């Protein structure tokens, strides 16, 4: 036998009252932020971190940024040759890598587009500033956030490994 139908009006009242009781007994879904801190998911997109050693200042990220909030400056330097007797190599040296988080809209295109694995998502989220100009973070600050970047997940079985074999 079918259950007697509860009118929608009373069902609605039941839903709100149920939530009221659940919040009163089990606590709310929200967190009292400055007093207790939420641990974001490991892969949360909190802030963009820079691994400086991998950056070749190729400008791909800066050009693909919809907000133009990445500023890169660099110069070429001579490095000692790989083998003895070879000619010295030319390497790109990064002078400046700034991201203006007042402009950034966290689209992540720069992270996607970086061919050298220099940009990563970090779950860090507490970097607000009293002055808007202070949200322009330089490469040393971006480098600090590398510590919280989680390890890359294992490749699936049978996946092609890119790069040098």
């Amino acid at each position, binding site marked *: 036998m079918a259950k007697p139908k509860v009118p929608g*009006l009373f069902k*609605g*009242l039941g*839903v*709100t*009252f149920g*939530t*009221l009781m*659940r*919040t*009163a007994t089990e606590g*709310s*879904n*929200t967190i*009292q932020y400055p007093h207790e801190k939420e641990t974001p998911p490991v892969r949360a997109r909190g802030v963009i971190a820079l691994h400086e050693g991998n950056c070749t200042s190729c400008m791909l990220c800066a050009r693909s940024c919809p907000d133009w909030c990445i500023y890169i400056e660099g110069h070429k330097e001579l490095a000692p040759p790989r083998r003895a007797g070879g000619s010295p190599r030319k390497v790109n040296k990064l002078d400046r890598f700034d991201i203006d988080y007042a402009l950034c809209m966290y689209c992540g295109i720069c992270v996607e587009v970086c061919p050298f694995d220099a940009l990563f998502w970090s779950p860090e989220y507490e970097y607000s500033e009293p002055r808007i100009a202070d949200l322009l973070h330089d490469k040393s600050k971006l480098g600090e956030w590398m510590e919280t970047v989680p390890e890359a997940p294992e490749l699936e079985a049978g996946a092609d490994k890119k790069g040098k074999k």
Partner: protein
Amino acid sequence: MNAAVLSADLAYWAQSLLRVLGGLVAVLLPAGTIVYLFLFKMMSFMQSRLGPMEAGPYGSMQLFAEVGKWLQKEDIYPARADRFLFKIAPLIVLASTFLLVVVVPFGPDAWFTDFEAGVFYMLAVSSVSVLGILIAGWSSANKYSLLGGLRAAGQLIAYELPMVLAVVGVVIQAGTMNMQGIVVAQNAGSMFGWDGLGNPYVLTQFVGFVIFMIAVQAELTQTPFDMPIAESELVSGYMTEYSGFRFLIFFIGEFATAGVFSMIASVLFLGGWAVPFSWFGWTNLNDIDNWMNVAGPLILFTKMVVLSFIIMWVRFSFPRFREDQLQRFAWKVLIPVSLVNIMLTAIFKVAF
């Protein structure tokens, strides 16, 4: 509040001062309770959050912070507003609340006026607030405000009628329009010879009670009847242009009226301030001990909290009515049902 008790040995100015202070307490205390307990806390809990927690223990001082914030804000007039009307409109709305609380009895001797036609007066002054709202909507010189004001006027007039008709049943049954008389009639009465609970009219007049509460919901323009102040389409309707202290007055008016209407509903249907007289062997108003003047307001306050819990619960649960649904509901459902209710009440009154 119990100026009547002291009236023998107090000068006129002292009595008046007591009445003013009592009136302020009777209006502001329910308003503050409703806002903190229901608007801040209950609403938050129903949305699985905690609400204000920083100001005082469990955010209990939040209201004072809010009042302080509003007092600091600039008092803005729209350029083409009708200054004088714009200024007095919130006061008219609040005045209606203060006029309402005058007839509510809080104890055997604790009342502001013992008015013979109390129910009639209550229904009359409760519609004064429509004037204030309409004036506010008109004088703001804003299309949205005007729309909100007109909607409010249409709605409040439509729901005034079921309210009046719902109360008529109570008046017939009690045989008096005096609010104190209605309280006595309920608590001195008996159901089929058993007087353990008195005879609260919520049992015999249940239809009237439901209609009255629905009409109160509409009078207060609380959701689901909040067409006039619909934030999403009219940006708060007649309140759009108000800021600072004048907005605060509207805000107090809204929730104080909710409290006063809850008190009136508990007087009319739940037995008001009194306990059933049979518990202490009282038979009429003169037998009642003096301590009821203290316990009475507390009992009434408790009933007020319960009723405004229902009002706010409905408010937080349901979506808004469309304008035509709202009018159709008043004219085609509530009014016929309350007319039938009056007829049945009259028949039973004569039959028994």
